[in-house]
């Protein structure tokens, strides 16, 4: 926490409380007076948006769990007969929860790209970034298990495909992978036991996420926010108290994001859903195309682009774990891409790469566009994904001549007025 506490207890009880459990002082220092760089832009509102959606997912999820039945014979009916038809506003809770997950991922991707662009992972914020990567991986696990719960065709087959990835380990140690898969299933195939444990973990993990979010915010509050200029706060003239400046700004952007969210929930609740998931799970009928939710498509494209299963799994897992190493892969002394003319271009190419990979993941394996098989596009995309982090980040930092950095946040351009 930069700066000393300025909290003054207002009365006898607050003084008594403050000397025993300084909870109010803590809230005051972290949520009110916390010095925040004065130049944070729109892209910095996504932390607040994410907090909002985590809360919304937990609240809607707890109520849904009151009506949901984690049993392979009853799960689909409990969703489609009870929650969607009979439970008062059950349809609303369900659509909010399902679309809330999509909005949560949309927000987290913007948040991550923002961190990449402004170099928010660089010293002294490495731990902050790694905690973020942990939250992201936990989110993927939670979303995946949540997608299984309605027990529709996509639920069942997604669970089958993903848990079967572990069986590729058989190629390293015979039976190791299939033993792990059987252990995960609690049976010899995806079934009732799998559904039960996925429900249990789907209920547990959001609270683990909330705890890691607590650490993430703690790790944010030690060095303080990075900012679009990527330079340190040099004095009080560079910062503003979090409240009311950023509470007001974040609240407005949360409002805007909520409008988009409500548009989905009320007017296009199945836009990002798959029609097959309205068909009850049937282990005897495999859907023509098994497709994950949109937010996992880039990884799915990577997995499918590799002809060898084990290597595909390694590439998939490696793509996620790579993120944790970024703080040490980037050799540049300059944080923000605003002052990194080369990196800026490769960054946007990376954003396009992720979208192209997502597109490839959504199409059938043998799809061809403009005469090019998409599996080849996905291979190039995967190569660029890895090259961006493992080649461009270390090399560009050494080769690139950054633009001159401004002296301070309050004087972004030398001599110019703030």
């Amino acid at each position, binding site marked *: 926490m930069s700066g000393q506490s300025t909290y003054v207890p207002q009365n006898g009880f607050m003084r008594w409380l403050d000397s025993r459990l300084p909870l109010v002082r803590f809230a005051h220092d972290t949520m009110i007076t916390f010095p925040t760089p004065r130049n944070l832009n729109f892209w910095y509102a996504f932390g607040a948006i994410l907090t909002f959606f985590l809360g919304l997912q937990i609240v809607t999820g707890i109520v849904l769990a009151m009506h949901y039945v984690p049993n392979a014979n009853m799960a689909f009916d409990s969703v489609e007969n009870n929650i969607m038809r009979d439970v008062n506003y059950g349809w*609303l809770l369900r659509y909010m929860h399902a679309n809330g997950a999509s909005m949560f991922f*949309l927000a987290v991707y913007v948040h991550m790209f923002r961190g990449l662009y402004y170099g928010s992972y660089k010293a002294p914020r490495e731990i902050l970034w790694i905690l973020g990567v942990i939250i992201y991986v936990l989110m993927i696990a939670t979303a995946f298990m949540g997608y299984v719960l309605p027990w529709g065709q996509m639920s069942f087959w997604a669970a089958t495909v993903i848990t079967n990835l572990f069986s590729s380990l058989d190629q390293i140690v015979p039976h190791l992978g299939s033993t792990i898969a059987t252990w995960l299933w609690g049976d010899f195939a995806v079934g009732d036991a799998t559904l039960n444990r996925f429900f249990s973990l789907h209920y547990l993990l959001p609270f683990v996420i909330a705890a890691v979010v607590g650490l993430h915010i703690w790790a944010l509050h030690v060095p303080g926010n990075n900012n679009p200029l990527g330079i340190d706060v040099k004095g009080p003239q560079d910062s503003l108290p979090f409240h009311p400046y950023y509470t*007001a700004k974040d*609240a*407005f952007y949360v409002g805007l994001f909520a409008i988009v969210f409500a548009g989905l929930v009320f007017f296009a609740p199945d*836009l990002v859903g798959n029609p097959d998931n309205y068909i009850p799970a049937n282990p005897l009928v495999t859907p*023509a195309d098994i497709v994950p939710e949109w937010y996992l498509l880039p990884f799915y494209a990577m997995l499918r682009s590799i002809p060898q299963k084990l290597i595909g799994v390694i590439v998939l897992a490696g793509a996620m774990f790579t993120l944790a190493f970024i703080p040490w892969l980037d050799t540049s002394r300059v944080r923000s891409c605003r002052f990194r003319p080369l990196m800026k271009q490769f960054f946007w190419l990376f954003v396009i790469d992720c979208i192209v990979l*997502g597109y490839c993941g959504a199409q059938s394996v043998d799809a061809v566009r403009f005469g090019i098989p998409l599996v080849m596009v996905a291979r190039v995309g995967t190569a660029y994904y890895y090259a961006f982090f493992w080649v461009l980040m270390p090399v560009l930092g050494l080769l690139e001549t950054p633009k001159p950095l401004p002296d301070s946040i309050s004087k972004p351009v030398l001599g110019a007025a703030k």
Partner: protein
Amino acid sequence: MRFALLAGLALGLSLSVPAAAATGDQAPLKEVHWSFEGPFGTYNRTDLQHGFQVYKEVCAACHSLNRVAFHTLSQAGGPGFTAAQMKAIAAGYKIPAEPNDKGETVDDKGNPLTRPGSPADYFPGPFANEQAARAANGGSLPPDLSLIVKQRAGGARYVYSLITGFGEKPPADFKVADGKYFNPYFLTWNISMPQPLVDGQVTFVDGAPNKIADEAYAVVTFLAWTSEPHLEERHQIGLGVMIFLIVLSGLLYLTYRRVWKDAH
């Protein structure tokens, strides 16, 4: 900010493509417009009631509707039957009875006991079990129709195109399999269902036109309702929520500008 919204939308749209792309050689769906489309869409009560009649007289011979309870027929946003009409419809169905006072579930001749349906009951299916359904349909299982509109890419337009898509001549190089029928809107073109509707098949109680197109339009509207029975409520609440959020965001914007007035 606007860029972010657009980017988000573009992402959402580009990702909603797979369902449509997976249909391969299917004929392009027929252009039909529905009263329940769009943000203010509602179901047309007459279509819903006609559609119910088509389901009852035609589809129900093979297809179950087992997620729909009788009481929902008089529920707000539904076909708009009166409570008395709904009870009469329910009572017209025979439901397997619970054990009687002596614990019997079959009568003297060994037939299962039945009782008239009540509002809390669900539509009984035409077959006792899946095997019976397959045996009666050349090995194929007629799908339950409760969620059919949401289960198929293309939704209502797909179901409409399919049930009005019979009778076309297959291409010369395409062979219709034995016991199957040609339908270019069906994924494999070989469908087990024979043409379900013909002109004048259902005589609507109010004497409304009953060409294939009218019958199909009505029954698809009815099935859209069984798939999404709370659509009208959703649209209505959604409108209120949007107005609220837009006003709220406007006020939050003014607050934000006010707070930041002397910070820039």
